[in-house]
């Protein structure tokens, strides 16, 4: 046993150093070089800029929308909401009082907006990351009446935008990217009475 031990010392130490250099330095740096060369946009976070070059978000990561004029994002447990430095789910269990206390006011709010019938689940539940970039089409449709009212559009127009922005995959669920959807809203020609809340 003693001989086994002493014979293992040098390989253990030298191999640690060699593999650290190969796998901990060379591999990630080489991949960074390749990624930056072939897919610079994705490698740098798929950032979206406005006309003046200011970064307004990422197509991949969600950002908070809380106002009435935009499609609102799901509840988020990342920091104070959509904090890109502390991704997290709520981690509340299924029979949690805290979960019910959080969902109830959201349900009330939607009912006041005039959403009737069963609410789409993702409208009132927090995502796993707290940075979910998407809504389910049902969630977006539930918000369509409010958007139409606030923006002075017809519900039909809003529904069309949702349909156009909906992405489907046989490997996951139908979803709408909130940032893209809201940008599409902003691109619409202004209606007769823009931005005038009806209440």
């Amino acid at each position, binding site marked *: *046993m003693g001989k*086994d*031990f002493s*014979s*293992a010392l040098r*390989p*253990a130490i*030298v*191999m640690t150093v060699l*593999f650290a250099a190969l*796998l*901990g330095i060379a*591999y*990630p740096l080489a*991949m*960074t070089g390749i*990624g930056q060369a072939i897919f610079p946009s994705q*490698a740098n*976070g798929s*950032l979206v800029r406005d006309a003046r070059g200011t*970064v*307004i978000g*990422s197509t991949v*990561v969600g*950002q908070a929308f809380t*106002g009435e004029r935009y499609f609102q994002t799901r509840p988020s447990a990342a920091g104070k909401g*959509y904090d*890109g*430095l*502390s*991704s*997290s*789910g*709520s*981690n*509340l*269990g*299924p*029979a*949690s009082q805290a*979960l*019910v206390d959080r*969902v*109830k006011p959201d349900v009330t709010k939607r009912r006041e907006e005039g959403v009737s019938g*069963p609410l789409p689940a993702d409208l*009132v539940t927090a*995502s*796993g*990351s*707290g*940075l979910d*970039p*998407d*809504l*389910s089409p049902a*969630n977006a449709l539930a918000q369509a009446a409010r958007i139409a009212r606030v923006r002075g559009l017809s519900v039909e127009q809003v529904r069309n935008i949702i349909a156009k922005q909906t992405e489907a*995959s*046989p490997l*996951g*669920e139908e979803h709408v990217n909130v940032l893209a959807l809201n940008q599409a809203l902003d691109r619409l020609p202004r209606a007769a009475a823009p931005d005038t809340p009806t209440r």
Partner: protein
Amino acid sequence: MTLQGWFLILLFVGILLALTKPVGLWLHALYEGRRTPLHLVLGPVERGFYALSGIDPNEEQGWRRYAVHMLLFNVALMLFTYAVLRLQAVLPLNPQGLGAVSEHLAFNTAISFTANTNWQSYGGESTMSNLSQMLGLTIHNFLSAATGIALAFALFRGFARRETKTIGNFWADMTRITLYLLLPICVIYTIFLVASGVPQTLAGVVNVQTLEGARQSILLGPVASQEAIKMLGTNGGGFFNANSAHPFENPTALTNLVQMLSIFLLGFGLTWTFGKAVGNTRQGWAILAAMLVVFTAGVTVTYWQEAAGNPVLHQLGVAGGNMEGKEVRFGIAASALFAVVTTAASCGAVNAMHDSFTALGGMIPLFNMQLGEVVIGGVGAGIYGFLLFAILAVFVAGLMVGRTPEYVGKKIESREVKLTVLAIAVLPLVILGFTALSSVLQQGLAGPLNKGPHGFSEILYAFTSAVANNGSAFAGLTANTPYYNGLLGVAMWVGRFFIIVPMLAIAGSLAAKKYTPESAGSFPTTGGLWVGLLVGIILILGGLTFLPSLALGPIADHLAMIRGQLF
């Protein structure tokens, strides 16, 4: 449940079955030390590594020598990572200017990554610099996976070799697996991930002016290169706190499918390699069949429960399945499947928060781990763990029907059975012992976020995950305390190495035996009867040991949930 959901599950299993033999063949070439086309490029690296560290790759090692060399290498790696984490503040590539990782967290994390667990007591984005992610953590993702496969090779040789004292050379096994298997796949995998939207940069935080005019900070980093090996090596330690739920780790439904496939890929292949190594590939398929029976049952329950949703929320007027803690782009089916895959294999990456699953939907991931991570399992660790159950199964069959206990040409005798029981008994002792302790101590009770039975589930899940070297969590538990970091660290170490050492002793003992050809008195180990026996042994052992604890946690939680009783 939808047709589309079941299509995804069938597609997933179908792709893996198609890849089992090709991957198994590749692994078998490495098992035998044959040249591969990749030797042209990486051969000089391999020889250079041996030369610099004074290794003779052709030296055959007995089981003790194999074990000591493996252990010492793992200890050296662990100390290296501990040092990197503690020195983080003064090392380069730290764009956020993060301070040193605390002693107890660095202790926990270093063990965690060495043991192929990747339990995260920390939130990646707020704790680890880019250098720590690369140099401290990514290397373990490769080397703990390579160590696991090397150990499986050692046990295969125990079954395959006759009347010899040796089971191979640890350094040669580990180096070849890293260079000719893990690294090349990861290079291609990383490029695919970057193309799909996973960042790969040394930059840090990007400041965003959102459409509504608020400020948001987004963290970038060398994510893709770590993500690839995190999945392929069944490690599961995410770059970000939210792991594969984070859109930067897992941006699309396609990356999600590929991530799930890569968790199981090497585990599937290794069953074939085992069959080939012992001279009958049907032995490998029989093992895979038994694993798939347990896996399919688990997927069905979790998918069914998650699709049925949470009656507590239905009461409030919310429709449909349980979306708390799940991402819209994946939805119910892809999240339920991921949860069962990641806990059947000892990966522990998550694309949805298991803590927020329905009570029974979340019980399956817990139960998967309690079965000993042998349903596919961690790379290498899954198959050697499963073979321990196979030894037990032939022993039980021998007692029941009076057949000689033999497996793939080796007589199973008292020494092997004793060592097997020793290895298998570690799991429940540590899980239940530490869970009980934490359910009465103040430091333990301070951990759970949820109250009532779900809080108990959080503690039970943590120790199960640690001992089983999984690394997923009911993440409401506040584990970054000296108490939990310390105890979970011990649990992970015991769960890894207290199984490995008896397993290697079995390999040594088997290698010394002579070949016993199959006779009329042998119990056949390829047909449906054998598959049923294996499944029975695994479920009965797991069921008897852990059902009482499950009754206190998830089952009580389920009864509360359907009655609408809140905590």
